[in-house]
């Protein structure tokens, strides 16, 4: 199982702080595809963070990683 943290509007769109994926590992691209299908969210502008670092589409997310969805940021 992989737990994915949500922030900002994603929390409201998915209705969840944390989404659970019933797999032990998958690519970032596959993760986004699955979330897009499950929640009908726009994933083109989303970044995925693995263990607090930005990940590339081909990177692998595994059980135990700290995973988060990062919408375009607006701090400052």
């Amino acid at each position, binding site marked *: 199982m992989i737990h994915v943290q949500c922030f*900002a509007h994603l929390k409201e769109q998915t209705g969840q702080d944390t989404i659970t994926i019933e797999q032990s590992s998958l690519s970032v691209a596959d993760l986004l595809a699955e979330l897009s299908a499950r929640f009908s969210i726009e994933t*083109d502008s989303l970044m995925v*963070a693995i263990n607090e670092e930005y990940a590339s589409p081909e990177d692998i997310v595994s059980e135990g990683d700290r995973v*988060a969805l990062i919408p375009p940021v*607006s701090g400052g």
Partner: protein
Amino acid sequence: MYKITSQPIAIEEVTAKVVRPEAGAIVNFIGTVREFTKGKRTLSLQYEAYPEMAEKQLRKIGDEIKERWPDAVTAITHRTGKLAISDIAVVIAVSTPHRKDAYQANEYAIERIKQIVPIWKKEQWEDGEEWIGDQLQKTAYSDGKPGEVKPS
């Protein structure tokens, strides 16, 4: 040196972190909540952060500054939670031996914050509210990651 906090930011506390004998200049940037943006009135802002990653990315900005301006020391504190007009959202302090580097490094820091630090703001207006993204018009991360800033 790099902190996300839900408490009001004390400017002097952030500044004090970069005070040192080698410095001849300290530049502070203080980001505050603006009431009017393109004629639209903001009532308040709500900032949300992914704190662990935000602090890590702030530290990375400090490292990038060190590469470009080796004599610079940087401290950054960003606030989260509900902020009223004129409240302080972010304070950046940079000290260097000479002022030009401090000005440049400080501007670099705020530009990078707007690119890579996972903090989001929700604007509350008189007629509604909305999460804001893409302030730099770079929604499409074509290379898969937020872009690097080229030193000027």
